[in-house]
């Protein structure tokens, strides 16, 4: 298959996927609902989630069960798209599988940290797809150390094994190591794509990397009190606006005030507005910023992978929004307030 044909096929597929995404009307209706059951039945009756909600009973209000189903939709999307790409492009697409596996592993580790066991976390759909991983073993772990030990033989172990040497393994290190592993692999695989696609990748993800770096530096400074050297080492290379010198500068900021001043001069000033809700909204703001850029990239349907990159993230955003909507409805948040937690801005 020539690459041009591949792009055409992909873009056609992606256009179809885009057509099936939730519309603004869907969002509004969902926000107006009063119960999770109502949401489920709406998704079942009016949206492309129908196929995945077939087995869910209407009275099921279990958030994890729903999230599992939303994840299954993502898996279906990835499996579907994988059919239309070859060679390094398929490897690249496989990275997104890793991304969700990492997310699930992090969630499991977090649960272990909080409760001392992981058996409650029963829905790791992405990990379940990975034949090298034994869910039984993962669930039997009582500590993060055991979790890492039980991952022996998997792809993730090579990254995590060095943590075993330290006496105390913190959740922070576990999460950071996995995130770093993912970004390393993503970049490694992106570099095997055609030149043009590499540029597209950095154009789209560079912005994301910039924001992730800011978020990470901010959090490390505010909550984890890590040394600048450590923070720098955990940063992601190849941002759009920041090179390593900028990042280093940010890492070596004396305090959050200084960090805010430095960010103020960049396009990402919106991340650190200094308001009270900054911590809560930071991620949402990042995503919304990405949302608009991705919409542009998606609609271009250019002869490259920009639409592919965009749809992957947008579908993920839709999932996040749905989870937020469900939470908002469950806790009876007013619609106006609820809207603020959504990545998608409702006009």
């Amino acid at each position: 298959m020539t690459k041009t044909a591949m792009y055409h096929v992909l873009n056609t597929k992606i256009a179809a996927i885009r057509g099936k995404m939730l519309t603004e009307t869907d969002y509004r209706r969902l926000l107006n609902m009063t119960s999770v059951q109502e949401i489920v039945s709406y998704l079942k009756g009016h949206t492309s989630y129908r196929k995945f909600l077939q087995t869910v009973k209407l009275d099921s209000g279990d958030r994890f069960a729903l999230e599992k189903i939303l994840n299954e939709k993502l898996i279906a999307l990835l499996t579907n798209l994988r059919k239309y790409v070859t060679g390094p492009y398929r490897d690249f697409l496989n990275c997104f599988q890793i991304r969700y596996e990492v997310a699930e592993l992090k969630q499991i580790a977090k649960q272990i940290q909080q409760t001392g066991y992981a058996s409650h976390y029963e829905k790791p759909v992405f990990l379940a797809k990975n034949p090298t991983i034994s869910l039984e073993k993962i669930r039997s772990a009582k500590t993060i150390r055991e979790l890492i030990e039980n991952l022996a033989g998997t792809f993730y172990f090579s990254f995590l094994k060095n943590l075993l040497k330290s006496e105390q393994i913190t959740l922070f290190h576990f999460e950071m190591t996995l995130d770093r592993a993912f970004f390393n692999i993503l970049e490694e695989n992106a570099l095997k794509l055609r030149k043009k696609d590499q540029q597209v990748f950095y154009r789209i993800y560079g912005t994301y990397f910039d924001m992730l770096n800011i978020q990470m530096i901010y959090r490390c400074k505010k909550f984890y009190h890590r040394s600048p050297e450590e923070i720098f080492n955990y940063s992601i290379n190849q941002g759009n606006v920041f090179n390593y010198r900028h990042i280093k500068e940010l890492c070596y900021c004396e305090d959050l005030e200084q960090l805010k001043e430095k960010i103020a001069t960049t396009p990402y000033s919106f991340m650190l507005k200094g308001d009270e809700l900054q911590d809560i909204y930071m991620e949402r703001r990042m995503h919304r910023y990405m949302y608009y850029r991705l919409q542009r990239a998606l609609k271009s349907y250019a002869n490259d992978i920009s639409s592919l990159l965009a749809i992957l993230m947008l579908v993920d955003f839709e999932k996040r929004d749905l989870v937020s909507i469900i939470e908002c409805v469950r806790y009876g948040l007013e619609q106006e307030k609820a809207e603020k937690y959504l990545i998608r801005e409702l006009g």
Partner: protein
Amino acid sequence: MSIQKMEMLNMVGKMDQVDQIARKIILSSSVHMVNAYNEIQNNNFSILEAKNNIGAVIDYSYIRPYTSEKDLATYEDQLKALADILNIEPKVFPEYYKEAYSFKEDQAVLSELYESIREKHQRYQNLQQRLQELQGLEEYLSYIKKLDFNLTEALNMQYIKLKFGKLSKYNMDKLKKNYENISAIVLKINTASEFDSIMIFVPKALENEVERALKSLNFEEFPINFTFEGTPRDWLIAIEREKRTIQSEVKKIQEDLQDFKKQYETDIHKYYSRLIMEYEVEELKSYIVCTDEFFYLTGWVPVKCKQKLLRELKPFQNQLSIAFRKDKEYEDIMDPPTYIENNRFFRPFESILKTYGIPSYHEIDPTPFVSISYLLLFGMMFGDIGQGLVFVLAGLLLMKKLKRPNLGGVLTGLGISSMIFGYFYGSVFGLEGVITPIFMRPINPMEDINFILIAGIVIGIGLLSVSYLYNIFNSLKRKDLENGVFGSHGIAGLLFFWILLYFALAKILGFATFLPDQVLIMILVMLLAMILFRQPLSNLITGKRPLYQESPSDYYVEESFGLFETLLSMFSNTLSFIRVGAFAITHVGLFLAFTTIANMINSPFAGVLVIVLANIVIIGLEGLIVFIQGLRLEYYELFSKYYDGSGYEFNPIRIRLTERRSTQ
């Protein structure tokens, strides 16, 4: 050649014998277990009703599902570890699980054996690990062996710590970019494709800080657990010496283990064989219920295996209460499993049946019909002595060498059928005229096109009629008048099919029918009406009420469409068999095309090559197509008439080697 009769086994026995009895049942391979709890709950347990075992009846109220106390997992782990240490591939020998044994004793002996070897093995593993560490150290030192300094002193400095380790290229880059802020001296001593090996000097006062930074770089430290004297070069020599000492000890342990292996190899096989048995015992026990004293067991047993089972259980006869209940008693409760038994010739064709579904217990086994009709269809479509022979050989190969008895058996049968038809067609590897059939004029499908096509349809009509008969027979056996007598695949349907054919034939060939046309048409209409009204009709006769299972209007809307579909499919299903003739013609035609090419080439050698190629293509491609088309005729045209496939397979509890192995 039939579906075996089943009886329900009810058994009550003493709890302390449960293991031995379970083993006997497993060895007999004749009981399809049924959950006893449900049976007792539904009052289907005949011994309890009979009350001939007072103790067991009194205990009835304390009945509970069996919960296992056996620790098979530890046993298996120990066994696996032992096999691993001694490098033995455990095998199953039936004699070990057939003889009487006590699992508890086995368990004790095994764990003792495991303990005694484990110590040695641990030492062995430690040594191996030391060896590995030494090799690692050797590698690092080889990078710095040209440096002339006292390594021992460098490692024992008071204020500075020396570390060795690896960093990925990516992280090395990170380190470089921020080197001015790292309070340590980092020296790159080697670079490989993905990793750089480094040597770091850290002030002890700042060790924590540096440690944290290194951790964030995913630094893989190489701990030095040895001390030797002198320069790196001296160290290397000392390491070499140390390695040799360790290796000689390793060798000695290996020899010891070898002795162990000789001594205990058969034991490992023995314990493994019994473990496989114990797993089945546990599986069996998951179906039983028990009280403190008694256990209750239920399962389906083929009538012909009853004697065998009783013979196995003879030693326990006095402590067991056994009762068998006829399948009739279970008519409304549950269908027995289906156990098809056929002779060697028909057996492979069961797989064709089972791909579609397992016949239900009350059906007649359609395997003989499926086999014969499939062979007939295939042979007719693909008749050739030479190519048939290839199928036979391939089938035999699959059967004997590759352990695929079903596929092999089917293929052999098809090959033989192909050879027989090849004889009629006078065709050997596509070449006609090589042989002349002795008692029959050769049929050349290309020359007798109409004859062949019509022959296909005639055979189709024959096979369809048999299918109808099967359905009629099965339905009547179930006392199902609706489908058996009035249904579109019942007597009414079959009569309609035949009379219609007769009528059409008379019109085409122009002979007079034995009844006036009008009467025949009247009969046909009446038969159609019968099919249309089959539910109320049969309910009227059997006296079942209400007449309609759904609302009458729904019934008639549905049925009138159904009637239309019946007529249509009767027509299309019959014509469908044209393909049998058509493929016979294609078979010849395809080869004809190749012979024409061979003749055009004008070189005898290339000509032969083309003929060989033609045969390969025809066997591969056409063989596959005909194989599939034959299946299609079976599954769609024929099975839809009579085969329900709603049964479930008789699956007795027994030693299942291949299945277990695959789960391990």
